[in-house]
């Protein structure tokens, strides 16, 4: 009997366990994007090469514990059953396929706030997107929400929290923001940097430097800091004087790319100023919480992605480029391919187009690619 493994269970294996994966999607899909983890081993063999039998692939597989993965689910079930018949013990398939994997969010507690309350990171491991929930005294703000808002709704319900603020640090190009939709559902305020909102079709609250956002009676301050470069509106946030939510400006292993709105040359100097001047003037004790990770090795033992600002100024190559010219070259040349459907995603986030859920899923397939290096 083959068994289903949910995306949640696979996430657990990615963070703390082992797994051998037979990925039966096309070679090109596998090369573009796959399930990765410290102790995850995977091989690719398209399902259509296995229709007549799995004998050829058996010698490359362990005798027990194999997870078969495909795009949606169907072909992985077929191949899993064939492996089971061929005598492999404990054969699993990924429930909902890579679609489900792409959408799963792992909530990880980052820490407590000084005056009560706490901050959580929601790690969309399959896509490398990170979002945040700050809660205090029964109220919450969510920053850079994923499209699949159910994860936050469930969390809020379980913890008896009212969602009061939905905040996007910039107009995203790699994923469809759930911010506006969840704000509508919960009557929360939706915040967006005004310079990224010039073409939007909905009303919003301007996320600007002079407007602090308070959560709960304990006044957990979320202090916006205008840091253009990834987009013209990109705004960082300092939470509780302890955490720097850097959006897509600064990642643990890299820095943001300035080209996803088609204005690379214009925004290079903004990006440089934001990182080398504004960030450099902040306390180096701040814990940087970015909106993405690039490599699975950035995850710590809990599955969280974070690093002190001071450490990044020592180790992050993007913060240690000597000359302006070299910086310009690094952020405009030899960039990785752009995220899938990034222009349509931007238009969706502006409210200009309204794709169906299936279309939105399709648009978000693949890695995020918001950094200058992969």
């Amino acid at each position: 009997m083959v068994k289903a493994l949910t995306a949640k269970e696979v996430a657990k294996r990615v963070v703390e366990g082992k797994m051998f994966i037979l990925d039966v999607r096309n070679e090109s899909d596998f090369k573009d994007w796959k399930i990765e983890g410290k102790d995850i081993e995977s091989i690719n063999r398209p399902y259509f090469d296995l229709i007549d039998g799995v004998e050829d692939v058996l010698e490359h597989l362990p005798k027990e514990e194999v997870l078969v993965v495909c795009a949606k689910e169907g072909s992985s079930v077929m191949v899993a059953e064939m492996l089971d018949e061929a005598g492999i013990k404990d054969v699993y398939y990924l429930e909902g396929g890579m679609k489900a994997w792409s959408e799963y969010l792992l909530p990880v507690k980052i820490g407590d706030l000084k005056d009560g309350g706490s901050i959580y990171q929601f790690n969309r491991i399959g896509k490398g997107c990170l979002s945040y929930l700050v809660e205090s005294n029964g109220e919450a703000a969510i920053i850079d929400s994923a499209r699949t808002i159910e994860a936050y709704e469930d969390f809020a319900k379980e913890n008896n929290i009212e969602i009061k603020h939905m905040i996007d640090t910039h107009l995203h190009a790699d994923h469809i923001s759930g911010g506006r939709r969840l704000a509508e559902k919960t009557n929360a305020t939706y915040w967006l940097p005004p310079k990224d909102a010039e073409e939007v079709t909905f009303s919003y609250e301007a996320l600007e430097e002079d407007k602090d956002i308070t959560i709960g009676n304990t006044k957990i301050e979320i202090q916006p800091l205008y840091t253009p470069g990834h987009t013209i509106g990109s705004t960082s946030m300092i939470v509780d004087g302890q955490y720097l939510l850097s959006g897509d400006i600064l990642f643990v292993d890299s820095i943001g790319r300035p080209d996803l709105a088609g204005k690379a040359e214009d925004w290079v100097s903004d990006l440089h100023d934001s990182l080398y001047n504004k960030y450099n003037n902040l306390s180096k004790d701040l814990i940087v919480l970015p909106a993405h990770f690039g490599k699975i090795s950035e995850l710590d033992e809990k599955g969280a992605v974070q690093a002190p600002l001071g450490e990044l100024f020592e180790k992050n190559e993007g913060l240690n480029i000597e000359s302006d010219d070299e910086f310009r070259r690094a952020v405009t040349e030899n960039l990785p391919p752009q995220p899938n459907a990034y222009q349509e995603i931007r238009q969706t986030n502006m409210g200009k187009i309204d794709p169906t859920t299936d279309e939105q899923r399709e648009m978000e397939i693949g890695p995020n690619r918001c950094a200058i290096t992969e």
Partner: protein
Amino acid sequence: MNVKQTLDTKGLSCPMPIVKTKKAMDGLASGGILEVLATDKGAVNDLSAWSKSSGHELLDHKEEDGVFKFYIQKG
């Protein structure tokens, strides 16, 4: 185009369109052309990759009202 046979996989999802296409192709003589109708979007990538890996040629594919039509010549 001299289509020998039409295979209707409308409404079927992965892996069935390819499984059925493979079976139908097995019954064709070399050079014969199979028309495949499908509604599964994944079939677009999969049929071209499968054709290549199994030595057939995907001559053409188009979409009409949500139905994908593929023309595959047996190698």
